[in-house]
């Protein structure tokens, strides 16, 4: 027996959920037990990986022992690891919640293998170091997500997820054309080697720029960047609650992560201010439009879905600021703020959707106007909604407060003051839609007898919401360390 501690967790983060999917698919009657075990094991591998990256920096492995050029590489740097640890903790919370959510055993058996395949694809996407492997992971993610989203079997869910599948395919085929062009121009698929080739070769600037446009356009479709977000609200609002949480908190974030990866690592010499500004303008439109639609939404899940459109928009606002800031501690801090926003939203939105699912099963509907008395009937759930809502608004001490603060600070410093208006507008609208829900939830009924009514469902929602507010806001320092930056989190 031999264990290589430095590379094994990288592989295990992807292989454990994959193995779990195989086992739960083959032994459906043991699906809950096997699935929960594999969920715990996967999260343990992810935490181990995080500790390793924290201690010794970027990890990489070329699979099969072949030359880096020929093999598929896996790599975990700070950015990837930050998202992996978020995704896996959220994934564990969703797993615990899901183990009590599905009443129909048939649906439960269908859920587990697909959910573990989705999980494997997420980790695979975050850790991949190869352009084509990323494509296969994207497709696994898209197919598993669409299948999970249609699990309720209602006509709306099937129609929404069929559209989601088709749009996702359009996005990934466009990405694949970019991969084909890059292979034609640069002769390899390894991310680092292609990046080096792009940096070294000025002659192919036009080809590289066009490939960037193709790939980012394809992925923006998957990340639901305004105006390509049209598929998201129906797909996320009609899925079962644990699936909605995974789609909104994790799957959309994976597409954004890939855009960021390409933008910062691969195409750094090609990206310009104009392109960054265009994406940020779309992001700004997403912030305003998404928040506005969330405010006008009649159903709680639709509100959460539109809020995701807005929150993804914030992340794109960082691109022109990163372009305008020279390399150094300020830029590092800005990048960390971006990651902090993404991670906080992951926790907050997962908590929000899980709590929403509980409201829906308890009340039989999720119409916001008829939520009166929810706070008395489900105090813990309402508390979770309030907590994650405050992270969505960006109230202190949540992680998104620090993220937005640094974003606005940098916007003023670089003279791009207009983003401050966008962020302020988005924050005010977010406050309005969160308080609209909370004001409806508190009725005139007597105070509750018990805080927790359904532990297995409420505790994951509460914990995820709590992480987004307290842990990420008060203890964001470790994130800076993980990203390999010197500046403290006290900016």
């Amino acid at each position, binding site marked *: 027996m031999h264990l290589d501690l430095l590379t094994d967790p990288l592989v295990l983060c992807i292989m454990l959920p994959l193995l779990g999917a195989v086992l739960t698919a083959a032994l459906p009657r043991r699906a809950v037990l096997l699935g929960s075990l594999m969920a715990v094991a996967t999260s343990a591998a992810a935490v181990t990986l995080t500790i390793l990256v924290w201690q010794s920096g970027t990890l990489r492995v070329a699979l099969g022992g072949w030359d880096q050029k020929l093999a598929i590489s896996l790599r975990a740097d700070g950015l990837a690891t930050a998202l992996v640890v978020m995704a896996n903790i959220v994934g564990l919370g969703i797993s615990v919640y899901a183990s009590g959510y599905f009443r129909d055993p048939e649906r439960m058996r269908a859920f587990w293998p697909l959910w573990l395949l989705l999980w494997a694809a997420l980790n695979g996407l975050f850790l991949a170091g190869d352009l084509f492997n990323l494509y296969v992971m994207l*497709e696994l993610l898209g*197919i598993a997500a669409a299948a999970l989203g249609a699990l309720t079997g209602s*006509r709306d869910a*099937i*129609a929404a997820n069929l559209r989601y*599948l088709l749009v996702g*395919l359009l996005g990934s085929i466009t990405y*694949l*054309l970019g991969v*084909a062009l890059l292979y034609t121009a640069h002769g390899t698929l390894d991310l680092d080697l292609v990046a080096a080739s792009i940096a070294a070769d000025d002659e192919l600037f036009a080809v590289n720029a066009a490939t960037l446009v193709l790939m980012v356009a394809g992925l923006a479709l998957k990340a639901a960047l305004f105006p390509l977000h049209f598929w998201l609200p129906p797909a996320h609002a009609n899925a079962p609650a644990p699936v909605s949480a995974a789609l909104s908190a994790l799957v959309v974030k994976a597409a954004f992560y890939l855009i960021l990866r390409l933008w910062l690592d691969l195409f750094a010499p090609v990206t310009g201010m104009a392109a960054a500004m265009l994406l940020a303008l779309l992001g700004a439109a997403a912030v305003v439009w998404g928040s506005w639609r969330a405010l006008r939404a009649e159903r709680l899940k639709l509100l959460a879905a539109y809020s995701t459109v807005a929150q993804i928009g914030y992340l794109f606002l960082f691109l022109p600021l990163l372009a305008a800031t020279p390399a150094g501690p300020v830029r590092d801090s800005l990048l960390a703020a971006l990651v902090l926003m993404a991670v906080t939203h992951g926790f907050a939105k997962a908590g929000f959707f899980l709590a929403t699912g509980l409201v829906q099963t308890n009340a039989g509907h999720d119409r916001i106007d008829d939520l009166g008395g929810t706070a008395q009937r489900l105090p813990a759930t309402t508390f979770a909604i309030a907590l994650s809502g405050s992270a969505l608004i960006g109230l202190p001490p949540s992680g998104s407060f620090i993220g937005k603060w640094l974003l606005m600070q940098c916007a003023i410093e670089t003279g791009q003051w207009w983003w401050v208006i966008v962020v302020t507008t988005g924050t005010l609208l977010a406050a309005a839609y969160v308080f609209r829900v909370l004001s409806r939830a508190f009725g005139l009924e007597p105070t509750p007898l018990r805080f927790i009514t359904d532990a297995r469902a409420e505790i994951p929602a509460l914990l995820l919401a709590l992480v987004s507010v307290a842990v990420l806001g008060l203890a964001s320092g470790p994130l800076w360390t993980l990203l390999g930056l010197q500046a403290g989190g006290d900016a």
Partner: protein
Amino acid sequence: MTAQFLYGGAGLILFVLGLWSFLVHAPLLRKLIALNIMGGGVFHVLIAVAYRGDGVPPDPVPHALVLTGIVVAVSATALGLVLGARMQAGEREG
């Protein structure tokens, strides 16, 4: 190089035609076919890259990518068709 450009270029034209069909036509089946045509176009581009001249063995890597891509495309198409069939069945009942 000319043969390579013609073959790969035909793939690019297929990609654009597929994109046009995807955007213009509403029926699900046509959209799925359009996506498959787009995918076929990308596979053309990959196959063209593999060519290295007459009598020289082609580059095996793009060939393998295309094989993988075909299986992925078949999987996605199958799921899309069954989703579409369920939706139509639901419409007939409802």
